[in-house]
C-alpha cells in the first residue's frame, strides 16, 4: 500500500524527467528565448519558433474562460441560492452527463454545429469572412467542455458559506441579491477562483475537441475569426513525422514539457487556494 502511494509521488518526477530528457536535444541546440519568442516554424530547416503556438494556446484558453465564467458562475449561483428543487434535480444529472462526454464528441459537435454558425451567421454579421474554423469556435466548444467543472465546484463552495452570514445580512435589511453579491460571493471567492484555475488548466491541455475546430494554422491569430494552433494540437497533428526530421521529435516533447509545467503550476496554485479556504473556514 505504501508502495502505491510512493508511486504516485514519484510518477510526477518520472514524467518530468523523461520529458526533459527527450526535449534536451533541442534545448541545448538553441537558446530558450529563440525557441519561445520567434514565430518561424520550419522543421525541415531546423527553425522552431514556438511563439504562435504559445500565443494561440493562451488566446484560446483565455477566450474560453471569458466565455465560460460569467455564464457558469451565474448558473452556479442560481442553482445554489435561488433554484427550486426540481430544477436543481434536473440540472445535476445534466451537468454530470456533460462532464462525462468524450472530447471527440465535442469536436464532432463543433464541426457540425458551431463552425457552420460562425461561418454563415456570426462572421458576416461582424463584417468579415471566415471558414468558421477559428479561435471563436475553439473558445465556444471549450467553454462548454469546462462548464461542468466551474458549475459543480462553484455550487459546492457557495453551498458551504455558513447560513449565519446570510442571516446577518438579511437582518441588516439587505435584499437577496445584495446578500448574494456582497456576502456570499465574497466568502466563496477563493473557491470560485480555484474552480476557474482548474478549468483553465483543463482547457489549456485539451487536445481532440480543439484541433477539430480551431483551424490549425501556425500564425499568431489577429482576430477572433482567425484560425489558431494550440500546443496540444501541434503535438497531436505532427506525431507522425516526429521521427523522420531531426530535432522535430525533441521539439514536440518540448511542447509537451511546456504544457506539463504550466498545468502543474496551476494545479499547485489551485490546491494552495483550496487549502487556505479550508483552513479559514474551520
Amino acid at each position, binding site marked *: 500500500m505504501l508502495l502505491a*502511494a510512493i508511486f504516485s*509521488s514519484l510518477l510526477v518526477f518520472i*514524467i518530468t524527467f523523461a*520529458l526533459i530528457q527527450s526535449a534536451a536535444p533541442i534545448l541545448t541546440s538553441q537558446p530558450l528565448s529563440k525557441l519561445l519568442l520567434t514565430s518561424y516554424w520550419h522543421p525541415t530547416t531546423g527553425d522552431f519558433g514556438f511563439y504562435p503556438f504559445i500565443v494561440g494556446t493562451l488566446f484560446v484558453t483565455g477566450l474560453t474562460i471569458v466565455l465560460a465564467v460569467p455564464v457558469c458562475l*451565474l448558473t452556479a449561483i442560481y442553482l445554489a441560492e435561488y433554484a427550486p428543487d426540481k430544477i436543481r434535480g434536473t440540472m445535476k444529472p445534466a451537468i454530470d452527463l456533460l462532464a462525462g462526454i468524450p472530447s471527440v464528441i465535442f469536436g464532432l*459537435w463543433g464541426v457540425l454545429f458551431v463552425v457552420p454558425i460562425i461561418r454563415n451567421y456570426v462572421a458576416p454579421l461582424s463584417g468579415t469572412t471566415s471558414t468558421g474554423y477559428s479561435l471563436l469556435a475553439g473558445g465556444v466548444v471549450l467553454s*462548454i467542455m469546462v462548464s461542468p467543472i466551474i458549475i459543480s465546484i462553484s455550487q459546492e463552495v457557495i453551498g458551504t458559506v455558513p447560513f449565519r452570514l446570510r442571516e446577518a445580512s438579511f437582518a441588516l435589511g439587505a435584499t437577496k441579491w445584495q446578500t448574494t453579491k456582497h456576502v456570499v460571493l465574497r466568502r466563496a471567492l477563493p473557491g470560485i477562483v480555484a474552480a476557474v484555475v482548474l478549468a483553465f488548466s483543463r482547457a489549456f491541455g485539451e487536445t481532440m475537441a480543439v484541433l477539430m475546430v480551431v483551424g490549425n494554422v501556425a500564425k499568431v491569430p489577429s482576430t477572433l475569426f482567425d484560425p489558431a494552433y494550440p500546443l496540444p494540437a501541434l*503535438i497531436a497533428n505532427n506525431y507522425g513525422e516526429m521521427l523522420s526530421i531531426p530535432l522535430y521529435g525533441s521539439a514536440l516533447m518540448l511542447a509537451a514539457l511546456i504544457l506539463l509545467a504550466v498545468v502543474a503550476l496551476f494545479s499547485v496554485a489551485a490546491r494552495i487556494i483550496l487549502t487556505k479556504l479550508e483552513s479559514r473556514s474551520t
Partner: protein
Amino acid sequence: MLLSTSIVLGSLLALFAVVILKGAFALSLSMITETPKAGYYLGGGGGILNAIVGSLYLASGATALAFVISIPIALFLNEYAGRSRFASLTRLSLDILWGIPSIVYGAFAFTIMLYLGARASLFWGIITVTLFVFPIMTRAMDEVIATVPLRLKEGSYALGSTRLETALKVVTRQALPGILTAILLAFGRAIGDAASVLFTAGYTDSIPRSLFEPVATLPLAIFFQLSTPTPEVQERAYASGIILLIIVSIASLASRISTRRLMKYVVK
C-alpha cells in the same frame, strides 16, 4: 441567471440533438457487427466492430489496472497516513497528475516506448490510459472513503480487528457505492479519451488477438472517419459518435442505478 442556466442546459440538448440527428441515418446493424472491409475509409463496406471491441478491451483493462493501484492508495491515505506530511504530499502529487493533459501522458509513454524499442500495441495503450485515469479514480475514491463515519471504524477496532481488516471489510463496504461510481467514472474517461492512445495504441482494422498487437479505439475511429473526403464515411463518423455516446451514457446510468441499489449496505 435563468438565462445562463438555460444556455448550459440548451448546449447539452443541442449537442445530443445534432449528433443524433446527423448520425441516425448511417447507424445500422452492420456498423456494430462487422469489421471494416477493404476500402472502408473511401466508401467501402463494413463496420467499426474493431473499434468498439478494441475500445472496450482497452478501457476495461485500463480501469481494472487503475483500480488495483487506486484502492491501496485511497485506503492508505485514509487509514494509515491521515494528516501526515506524506499524505499531503501524495494528495498534492495526485492533484498534479489529475490535471496533466492526456496528450502529455501519451507523449511520456511514447518516449518510454522509443527508449525500449517497443511498438504501439494494446499493452502500451492500456498502460498509458491507466496512468491517465488512476489519479481521477483515486481522487474520487479518496473523497468517498473520507466520508466513512469514524464510529464505524472505532466499533471495528473495539472488536479487536486490525487496521487492514477494518479497511478491507468495514470501510470498503460502507464506501461501496462511491467506489463503484469512481470506477465507472474512470471507465467513461478511459473509453472516450483519444489523445493518450494516439501514439501508443496504434490503429488497425482487425480485432487484436494478443496484448502486443495494435488496437483500434472508438475516438480515433471517429476522428479518422471524419477526416476522409467521402461524405458517406463522414456520416459513419457521426454514427460512431452516437455509439460512443451510448456507451458512455450506459456507464453513467449504470453508476446511478448501482449506487441506489448498493445504498442498502451503507450505514447512515
